[in-house]
Every structure is written in structure tokens, then in C-alpha cells.
């Protein structure tokens, strides 16, 4: 969507989250786009307000109060988007994940092939995939029918068959969908949107099955040949139908949609409302592309945790997004405990605690999700839970961010000893360059080193990795902005959104005899050189501030890898940040915490002191 006409200098963007509506004001001042103000208010999609625009007006109202200027229409029933730059703002846009976000069921013939491709398309568009129906998923037809009916998806994506492949199985899936006849969550009177993105030769038969009873939209096959995915058309159509059908039914959204847009040469041009995760994904893709690096982003919310990644695969950059629908820090906090197990949460707590007490505390957070830790002890527990939520979200991401399965691979004699399979995960923590964390528990951690510590513990980056956090969860708004004004989005992202924490250096591999896993020699910008051993089982924090760079030569112990291959010396530049340079000698592949409880607690305390994660005095009191 290119912009023509007058220059846009004042931008208002909101993100209607499941609990909070966040508004940001961006302005072009002295030739650069910068974040000026931020406001927030509770989301009002539920009773008693049942109108999402009320929360938007409140959040924008907070910006008005703080800025002492007006951005709402004089009637207070909308955003004042001016055609000539006279008042209000030049453009307004929004993302949304309120009301549970976009919930989809996807279908494909073979679960690990077209089923997975359909899942990737839906996830990439920002949906929560509630179920993957496939001809070979092990369920009987009537079980599939009742599952589709019970889940009541907002939309269904049906794929299956490469072009010219199976027709029978695809039509059978269409039959199952028709028999289920699921009723949408919002709006009793409208037809359920179904996107068909499968074998082009089955289009007619599928239309025959679904054409009358559903809102059927046919797009290009998302897996036209086994060796290639074509997810773009399906993703775009999901966005389109999300706007037209799903959002239009949710309370207040038709009004919100009418507000979002700007004037181009005297004519009103709408800016579509994007699903929040879809917008974040767009931004991550842009960052990876602009800088030519591998990026992973994680957004840990109250109800869900999203993981986005761009990794290289056979010379191409592949974007993936997964959503762990029930891993989060408030609504879903108990599910983290149920999924990870109490022991896994407790292993990150650097003091001993009664199990009944811990369980009750976590449950009380679940039933009153908006409360915040007042005591340090409570903060430590929340951050322990966050580590497990993040770890589990990464496990799920690894499983779906894979190469295409079922593809015949050409192997040369040189590949004979590399037992790689088609469909192996693309996630490679060694080649990863940048890891970005977002979401309250990371972005609002009282100390930035806590965010860095959580990211390192849960994602276990290997070799040399830059860590960063999204300062105030602006990524959704910047994602939708990137559609209209890409330069403004990247400028604000770089200057106001991304807070660089620093670089983590972590040797990976097995060498049980080595006391020193690597030696890091750095040359600072003033020419001073230092040498630091990365001792096994320790962490060390070196000062290296924001914008500072140091030349480094990292020599790993025999058999260990820091990015240049096992035993090979790595040289390059390390970038600093608000935390600094973290040398992590706790090991990777494998990473293990001490099994003995007393030793584990002692080690956790040591690492916390090394990184200045929690106040030193904390471990001195109460027998900790």
C-alpha cells in the first residue's frame, strides 16, 4: 500500500489486546520519525461496555491528557484524522487480538504435509490454530465432525493435494466440514468463511460441497508441488476475511474499521485492521530482511505466547510463527504449571518453598490475572514460571518451523554421513543472530538484566547472540505501520522500540574435562585488550554499553563450538547493550542444572549475583 499525496507526519496507532488497549503517537520531527507518547486503557470488548472503541477512546484520551493536545473528534466519537494536516493526526491504524483473537481450524490431506502447510499459513496470518484435521489424523469421520462442531472456529482453511494430485481425499474433507456445519462464535446469522487452498482440480467438487452453506473463497494451492509452499495467497485471504467477516461481527469493530485510515488526494483510504501477531510477524520479517540476519522474536502475553523466527534454509529466508495458545503469564499461568510440571518451575527458584503455598499463589494469579508482584519473592516466582512458558513455546516452535516434509532430497556422496531428514527443524540457536523478547514479564522486568537472564535460561542461545527487548510492546503497531510507511516503522523500531540488552556468548558441545570452555579476548574501542576465561558452570557479566562494540577473538576448548565450528576460533565484533556482555559457561547441548537441591540453589544464587539479576541482599535474608 504505497502512500501518495501529502506527507504523513503524525501517526496514531492502537493495539487492542485481550486485556489492554495500547495507543502510541509517532511524529516526524527534525526529519526523523520518533515515538512521542504512549497511552493505555482496559480493552472493552466484553460486557459491560461490549464495544472495543471505548477502550480505544480511553487509551487515546490518555495521550491527549499527557500531550495537552486533541486527537479525538470534537464529538469524542472517533479519531480526528485530518485531510490537510490541520488538526488531529494524519493517519490512524490498529491491530487487534481482543475477543480471543482469530481462531481457526485447518484441514489437509496428510497431516505432516498439507496439514502442516495449512497450519503454517494460518499461524503466519496471526491465527490460533485450534485443530488440524487430516485424512490420516487417526480420528474416525464422525469424530472429526463433532470436533469441528464443538470448537466453533471463526474460519476454516481447507487445503490438500498438490495440483493434479488427489481429489477424493480433499472432497472427503469438504464433506466432513459440511456435515459438521459449525456455527461461528459471533453473529448467528452469517455464514462461516471457508478458504479453499488445495488441489486446483478439486475446486469444482469442493465448491459443490461447500458453496451453498458456507462463505467459500477459493485461492491458489498453498502446496502446489511437494517441494514448494505458496502461503501468501491463503494468508492474504485470511486477513481479508478476518476484517470482512470475523471482526465485523465483534462488538464495536465495524466502527473501529471505519476510523482506521487516512486521506489520500481528497479520498478516504481505509487501513485494514490486522490480527496482532500477524503484524508482529511482518515487522520481524522486515528486520531480518533489512539486516540480512537470522532473527527470533517471542511475545509472552497473558493468555498466549507467540514465537516468530526467520532462519535460512537452502539459501532462502524462511519465516515461521507459532502460537502456544495456553502458555501465558496471567490467564494461562496455571497451564504453564500443568504443562511444565512443578519441578521444572521450581528448578529456577533460588530458594526453597512449600508446594501447596506455591500452587495456591499461582492459582490466585490465574483468577486475578491483572495483579502484579509487590514482593521480590513473588517476582522471582513469576520469572521462574516465565522461563518455563518460554521454554515450552520454543519446543513447540521447533516442531513446526521445519523444512517441508515428504520432499525427496538429492544427496551427494558428501552428504552420505549427514543423516539429515526432510522436515528437520530450521531453528538453529547457534546461527541465530538476534533474539527479541516482548510481553509484560520481559519488557516490564524491573531490571533489564532480568529480561536477559530469562531469555538466556529459556532459549539457551548458543555461540554469539544479540539479545533485545521490545521496550513497551510497540511491535504490533509498528507491524501495521510497516504496511503503509515502512521507513517510519523501521526508524521507530530501531530508535524507540528495540532496547539492546547486549550479547551472550555461550560455548556449545561436550568436553567434560574442560574447566575453561572458551577464552574471550576483546579489544575495546579505546584500544585496551582484555582476556576472560569462560569457566565451566559460571556466568560472567562484562560492561559493554549501548552502541559500544568490541573486536573479539573467542577460542573454544577442544570439541566445543562458539559459532565457527567445533574447536574453531571465532572472530568478529561483539555489540553491547544496557546489560552488557554475558559470558555463559553453563554449557549447551547439553545444558543441565545441578541435580542436588542445595547445589542448585547455591548455583542459581551465584549466577544471579554474577548478572546482578536480583539484589544481593535478597539472598541474605530469611534463610535464603
Amino acid at each position, binding site marked *: 500500500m504505497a502512500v501518495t499525496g501529502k506527507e504523513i507526519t503524525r501517526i496514531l496507532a492502537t493495539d487492542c489486546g485481550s486485556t489492554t488497549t495500547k495507543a502510541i503517537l509517532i511524529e516526524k520531527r527534525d526529519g526523523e520519525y520518533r515515538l512521542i507518547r504512549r497511552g493505555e486503557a482496559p480493552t472493552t470488548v466484553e460486557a459491560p461496555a461490549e464495544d472495543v472503541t471505548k477502550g480505544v477512546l480511553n487509551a487515546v484520551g490518555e495521550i491527549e491528557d499527557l500531550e495537552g493536545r486533541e486527537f479525538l473528534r470534537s464529538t469524542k466519537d472517533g479519531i480526528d484524522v485530518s485531510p490537510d494536516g490541520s488538526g488531529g493526526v494524519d493517519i490512524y491504524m490498529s491491530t487487534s487480538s481482543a*475477543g480471543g483473537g482469530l481462531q481457526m481450524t485447518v484441514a489437509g490431506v496428510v497431516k505432516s504435509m498439507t496439514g502442516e502447510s495449512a497450519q503454517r499459513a494460518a499461524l503466519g496470518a496471526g491465527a490460533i490454530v485450534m485443530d488440524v484435521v487430516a485424512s490420516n489424523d487417526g480420528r474416525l469421520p*464422525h469424530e472429526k465432525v463433532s470436533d469441528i462442531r464443538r470448537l466453533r472456529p471463526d474460519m476454516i482453511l481447507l487445503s490438500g493435494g498438490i495440483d493434479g494430485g488427489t481429489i477424493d481425499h480433499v472432497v472427503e474433507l469438504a464433506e466432513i466440514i459440511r456435515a459438521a456445519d459449525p456455527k461461528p462464535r459471533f453473529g448467528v446469522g452469517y455464514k462461516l468463511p471457508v478458504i479453499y487452498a488445495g488441489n486446483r482440480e478439486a475446486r469444482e467438487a469442493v465448491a459443490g460441497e461447500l458453496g451453498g452453506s458456507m462463505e467459500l473463497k477459493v485461492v491458489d494451492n498453498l502446496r502446489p508441488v511437494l517441494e514448494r509452499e505458496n502461503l501468501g495467497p491463503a494468508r492474504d485471504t485470511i486477513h481479508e476475511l478476518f476484517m470482512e467477516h470475523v471482526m465485523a461481527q465483534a462488538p464495536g469493530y465495524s466502527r473501529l474499521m471505519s476510523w482506521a485510515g487516512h486521506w489520500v488526494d481528497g479520498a478516504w483510504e481505509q487501513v485494514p485492521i490486522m490480527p496482532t501477531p500477524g503484524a508482529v510477524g511482518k515487522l520481524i520479517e522486515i528486520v531480518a530482511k533489512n539486516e540480512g540476519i537470522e532473527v527470533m522474536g517471542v511475545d509472552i502475553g497473558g493468555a498466549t505466547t507467540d514465537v516468530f523466527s526467520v532462519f535460512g534454509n537452502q539459501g532462502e529466508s524462511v519465516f515461521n510463527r507459532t502460537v502456544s495458545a495456553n502458555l501465558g503469564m496471567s*490467564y494461562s499461568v496455571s497451564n504453564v504449571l500443568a504443562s511444565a510440571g512443578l519441578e521444572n518451575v521450581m528448578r529456577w527458584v533460588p530458594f526453597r518453598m512449600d508446594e501447596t503455598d506455591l*500452587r495456591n499463589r499461582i492459582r490466585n494469579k490465574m*483468577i486475578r490475572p491483572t495483579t502484579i508482584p509487590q514482593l521480590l519473592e513473588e517476582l522471582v516466582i513469576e520469572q521462574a514460571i516465565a522461563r518455563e512458558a518460554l521454554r515450552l513455546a520454543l519446543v513447540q516452535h521447533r516442531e513446526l518451523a521445519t523444512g517441508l516434509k515428504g520432499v525427496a532430497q538429492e544427496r551427494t556422496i558428501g552428504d552420505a554421513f549427514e543423516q539429515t531428514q526432510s522436515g528437520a527443524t530450521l531453528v538453529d540457536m547457534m546461527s541465530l543472530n538476534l533474539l527479541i523478547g516482548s510481553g509484560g514479564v520481559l519488557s516490564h522486568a524491573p531490571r533489564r538484566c532480568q529480561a536477559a537472564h530469562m531469555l538466556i535460561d529459556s532459549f539457551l542461545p548458543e555461540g554469539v547472540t544479540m539479545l533485545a527487548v521490545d521496550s513497551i510492546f510497540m511491535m504490533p503497531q509498528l507491524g501495521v505501520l510497516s504496511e503503509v510507511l515502512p521507513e517510519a516503522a523501521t526508524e521507530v523500531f530501531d530508535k524507540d522500540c528495540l532496547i539492546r540488552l547486549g550479547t551472550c556468548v555461550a560455548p556449545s558441545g561436550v568436553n567434560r574435562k574442560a574447566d575453561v570452555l572458551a577464552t574471550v579476548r576483546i579489544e575495546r574501542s579505546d584500544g585496551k585488550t582484555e582476556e576472560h576465561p569462560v569457566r565451566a558452570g559460571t556466568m560472567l557479566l562484562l560492561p559493554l554499553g549501548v552502541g559500544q562494540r568490541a573486536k573479539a577473538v573467542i577460542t573454544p576448548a577442544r570439541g566445543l563450538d562458539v559459532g565457527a565450528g567445533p574447536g574453531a576460533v571465532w572472530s568478529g565484533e561483539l555489540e553491547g547493550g544496557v546489560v552488557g556482555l554475558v559470558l555463559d559457561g553453563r554449557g549447551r547441548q547439553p545444558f543441565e542444572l545441578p541435580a542436588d537441591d542445595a547445589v542448585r540453589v547455591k548455583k542459581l544464587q551465584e549466577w544471579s549475583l554474577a548478572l546482578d539479576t536480583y539484589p544481593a541482599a535478597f539472598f541474605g535474608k530469611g534463610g535464603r
Partner: protein
Amino acid sequence: MAFAYTPGLRVAGIAVVRKERRLPLKGETLVRVGDEVSADTIVARTELPGNVKMLNIANVLGLPPGDIPPLLTKRPGDPIGENDLIGQTKGMFGLFKNAVRSPIMGIFESYNEITGQAVLREPPIPVEIDAYVKGTVIEVLGGEGVVVEARGTFVQGIFGIGGEVRGEMKVVVRSPDQELTQDLLDESCRGKVLLGGSFVTSGTLRKAIAGGVKAIVVGGFDDRDLKEFLGYDLGVAITGHEKKGITLVLTEGFGRMTMAKGTFDLLRSREGLMASVNGATQIRAGVMRPEVVIPVEGQEIAETERIAGAMDVGSPIRCIRAPHFGRLGRVAALPAELQVLESEAHVRVLEVEFPDGERATIPRANVELIEE
């Protein structure tokens, strides 16, 4: 700005309670606007489409899917009985015929010439919904259901399990800080909604189920007991569908927690009246809290309307997180500037004064308003 938005749970002595009674699918409403209904009056009904059975006729008969239609003995829409003949091959000289029979009773819905599959559908499943509370029908939602309005006591809990039940309110403890123990249960509790005090265990719940108790309203419950009682660790807080034979409503939270005195006294004053209780809780998009509704006749509505969620100096509040979890007090001050907590977080806070005169500073997010 001297107020904060902190929605509390509703505890109202007399309130107008409107309950939407909606069918899962469009159907038929059986009452009209103005009708007086009792809690068990059926107000709407519908029929859910029956379960589907897919039968691959081409496979059974061993023929290509396109050859099947002339061999079918049923047409789309025809009723079928269990074991009815659906189709058969011509055989050889009228012998060696292959036949396919219906595994279910219902309707022959369709046959697909590409897949060879027939869709057979079982008879529709009737669904009825009742009024849930005694009151008046004030709105008919087309064919989808009705809105029933009742006047009475309305208490929201914080968490519950089990669905809608009804029973007479009975008080079994002396004070809000007393635990509801097994020895307090006897034959007089059968069919009743019991008001407990601070705590209940899974053992007591089981004894209550055996004794025919309909529901228990109590301050707190241990999560460990919840896991043991349900047989699984509850992940996401979406409840109401448990079939445990009892509905449980917690008014305060997890752990041993004295029930708020106002809640306890109010429910105690309704002893002997019929209560409608629902444990269904959804803590995510579309928050739903468990509730106790007790229709009361002959009392004027004297409810004062407050601005939803507005908090001011003097507002009664409850602390909902450590270190003061469960304590009640009044807002003493609402400082505008952010303050630093022990956890080192910078947040908006308030000063609370407890009944014993002690004052404390706590995050605004960690209190809830109590309605007076």
C-alpha cells in the same frame, strides 16, 4: 485523575439480575414477554443436528464410486432404520449379491460420487433450557432464547466448578472464618446449597456429594485438593462442565481464606430461600465468574448506582495479592506519581488503611473494589 479502574466482584443485597438464556442454535421460545417463570420453567428448546456416520458404500460393495447411484435403495433425505438396506449389487444371475446396510437409525443425507462416501445422520438431539432463576421474561431473542429478570440477592464468586444447580440456602458454620468440616454435614443438608466459611477440603466435598448436597459456597480451597478432586491439573480456567455431582463457588480464592464478612452475612440472611448457583468460570476473553442468585420478593430495589470500577478515597477494598492478601480496608490516599515496590517495579499505588489503623502502600492493580 483521582480514581482507578479496578472492577470488583458484585455482592448486592437486592439487585435486578438479568439472565440471558440462549440456545446453542436457533430454535423455539416457549414463553412470552411478561410471563412469570420459575427456575425450572422450560423457556426455549431446539434440536441439534444428529451425529454423523460416514459410510463408504463404494468400498463395501467393491465398485467404483461412480457406479453406485443406480444401486442405492435410498435417496437423500429418506429416513433409514438400523440395518435397513441402503444399496446392493445386482450379483450374478440374481445371486451372490453384495449388500450395504445402515448401521444407524436416522436419515440418508447424501452420497458423493467422487469419494463413494454416504453421509448418514442420526436423529436430532433435543435441547431445552430452563429459566434458571425465578422471575419475569423481559425479552425474547427471536428464536434463540429469552432474557429473564429477577429481583434478589446477587453474589459473584471468584472461581467455581460445576454447572447450574438450585437448592435451599442453608448455613452450616457459625462464622466466616470457620472451616466447613465433614462433621458439619448431616441428612438435613440433602438438596441444599451450603454456606461454608473459610475453607473446604476435597474429602468434605466428597462427603457432601454422597449426602446429596447441591452446592457449596465457601471462602477458599487448596489447589492441591482441586487437582485431586478433579483428577487432573486444571490448565486454563474454563470451568462449569465438570460432572462431579456438586457445584463449588469460592468467594475469595485459593488457600485458607476467611469469607468477606459482608458476603457471609448477606448469604446468611437469606437462609431458607431458594438459590440458583452456577460454578461456571471463564477467566479470559469473555470473563465469567461463578454466582449465587437468590430471588427475594417484596423488597424495593434500593441499589445505589456507582460508576463501574471507580475508586476513590474512602472506597472499601480488598487486597488480592501478597503480602496483604485477603485483608479488607479503605483507600486512604491515591498518590498520582509512580512508586517503587520491594520488587523494584515502578507502579501506581494507593494507600490503604486497615480496620486496626495500620496503613500500607500497595499497587493499585493488587486491590479490588467491594461494593457497599
